[in-house]
């Protein structure tokens, strides 16, 4: 299309052909070496002539591209730019321009940006709790859309489909957030979003393929899976980052509907608050650059009053939840290492039991071996005060330790197979639970 591009290709083809042909000629026993030398010199001269011609064409193209008005107003002299060459160059430029502007072809994306994750797998356990089913199972199908409705308006909608233990399909509107980007330093989101605390909850969530292991740390399980932390919030969230000399500071400030506890599980109240007690939280992190690229660390905290209800929807207790956390993560050079720690100072607002301290945390380490294999190990531990109404009212609000050993195989940049063994010791349960989990996860 562009003479400046095609001519070098012809030249390259000529040179390669010449490179192949010349040795063949020389190898012939009857070849006339003098004639060969003449041909070689002719070829070199031809290359030189073509090179000169390319330079001339490139100069002409540059002139017509940078000063089209001047060219139109005052045609170049015939000696330096023949009329037919100028016309051909104009035609080529016009064609290229038309192709580019008319197609604006995007090889990566066409139409509404729709992405997603899906996973399937196998689950087997030893000493399972009552009601636990083993065998093959569908994991989840997670769609998310990221339409940009203008230079400053962003939208993120995530819809997750899963299958319950009794085989029923469940759909959750995981995220529905609409934001306005004022600058790199401030984006304001409104809607339902992943609570911006810690590392795992922000980085992986329902993205099974990008998640380093089969399952999440138990303390960070989703609310409807028995998680003990409010990992979703419906409200307003301001976030942004500021560049520093050695990296970037990232901040989060948010407020939203408070969480309640019903039927032994957290409910983030996405459809409206059960009372006037709002959650407020913050996060402050630092992403290192340069030699420490891939390293990040931060702190976070939240505060809210949580009411626990019984089956008849009668309030059982009120607890002021205060959670502080810290994290560090390194994702570079084949390493995938992260750790989070949380400290709770929860005050009993409905009884006289006072303030209770609890803690939870995990450390996860994985390393890529031979490009595709990633063995990993994770240790989790939660020490939760059972006199604290916040944990007492939750079915999974017990102390535990868990060891996770796994192997991930990246079959493709968008597909991973993970095999994982874990052992969980639950406080108050006599025997440890051993599990084997296999997961095949993709992103699209």
């Amino acid at each position, binding site marked *: 299309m*562009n003479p*400046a*591009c095609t001519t*070098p290709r012809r030249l*390259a083809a000529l*040179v*390669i052909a010449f*490179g*192949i042909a*010349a*040795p063949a*000629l*020389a*190898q012939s026993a009857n*070849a006339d*070496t003098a004639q*060969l*030398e003449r041909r*070689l010199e002719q070829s*070199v001269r031809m290359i030189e002539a073509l090179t000169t011609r390319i330079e001339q064409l490139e100069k002409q*193209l*540059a002139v017509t*591209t*940078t000063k089209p008005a001047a060219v139109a107003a005052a045609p170049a002299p015939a000696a330096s730019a023949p009329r037919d060459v100028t016309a051909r160059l104009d035609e080529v430029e016009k064609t*290229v*321009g038309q*192709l*580019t*502007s008319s*197609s604006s*072809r*995007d*090889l*990566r*994306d066409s139409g509404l*940006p729709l*992405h997603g*994750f899906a996973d399937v797998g196998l689950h087997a356990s030893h000493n399972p709790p009552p009601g636990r089913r083993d065998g093959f199972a569908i994991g989840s199908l997670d769609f*998310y859309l*990221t339409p*940009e409705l203008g*230079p*400053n308006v*962003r*939208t*993120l909608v995530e819809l997750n489909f899963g299958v319950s233990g009794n085989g029923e399909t469940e759909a959750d509107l995981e995220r529905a*957030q609409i*934001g306005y*980007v004022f*600058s*790199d330093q401030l984006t304001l989101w409104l809607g339902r979003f992943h609570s911006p605390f810690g590392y795992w909850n*922000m980085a992986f969530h329902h*993205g099974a*393929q*990008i998640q380093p292991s089969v399952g999440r740390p138990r303390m960070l399980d989703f609310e409807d899976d028995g998680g003990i932390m409010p990992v979703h919030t419906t409200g307003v969230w301001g976030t942004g980052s500021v*560049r520093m000399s050695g990296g*970037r500071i990232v901040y989060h400030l948010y407020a939203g509907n408070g969480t309640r506890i019903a039927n032994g599980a957290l409910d983030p109240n996405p459809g409206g608050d059960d009372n006037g007690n709002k959650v407020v939280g913050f996060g402050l992190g630092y992403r290192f*650059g340069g030699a420490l690229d891939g390293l990040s660390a931060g702190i976070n905290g939240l505060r809210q009053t949580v009411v626990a209800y019984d089956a008849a929807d009668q309030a059982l207790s009120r607890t002021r939840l205060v959670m502080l956390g810290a994290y560090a993560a390194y994702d570079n050079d084949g390493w995938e290492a992260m750790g989070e720690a949380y400290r709770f100072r929860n005050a009993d607002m409905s009884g006289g039991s006072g303030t209770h301290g609890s803690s939870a945390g995990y450390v996860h380490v994985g390393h890529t071996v031979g490009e595709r294999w990633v063995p990993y190990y994770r240790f989790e531990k939660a020490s939760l005060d059972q006199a604290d109404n916040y944990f007492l009212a939750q079915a999974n609000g017990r102390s535990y330790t868990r060891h996770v050993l796994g192997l991930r195989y990246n079959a493709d940049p*968008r597909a991973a197979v993970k095999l994982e063994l874990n052992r969980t010791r639950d406080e108050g349960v006599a025997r440890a639970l051993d599990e084997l989990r296999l997961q095949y996860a993709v*992103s699209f």
Partner: protein
Amino acid sequence: MRKLLTLLRSLAVAALIGAALPAWSGDVYVIANLPLELTPEEVKEVFLGEVQFAGALKLQPVDNAGAQPDFVAKVLKMSSTKYSASWTKKAFRDGLNAPPLKATDAEVLGFVKANPGAIGYVSSPPAGVHVVGKF
């Protein structure tokens, strides 16, 4: 002896030109519609979605399929696979979309010329746009 010299000479010419071709095609020119002054680290942040604005101007990075391997290796200092994976994570976490992917230098030039906030990269010296840097 003369035949051997001829053979060596032929091979030398072919090898020299063959060696020159990859170097000729490996340069990457980062270009922008406006005269932006960006360090390599800032160019990296733009293409990884960390920076979206230059003042009030919304930046529009655009990828070039033909020059992408050289660009991600020389400027972003990562593999194409990791670059793609980083955008999978970025889109999921922050709701951002990866830069549009154009097929050729000409398409990237057309895009950059047509959009004030556009920033892209090409494999040959461009005309009519601002060169942020050569790598």
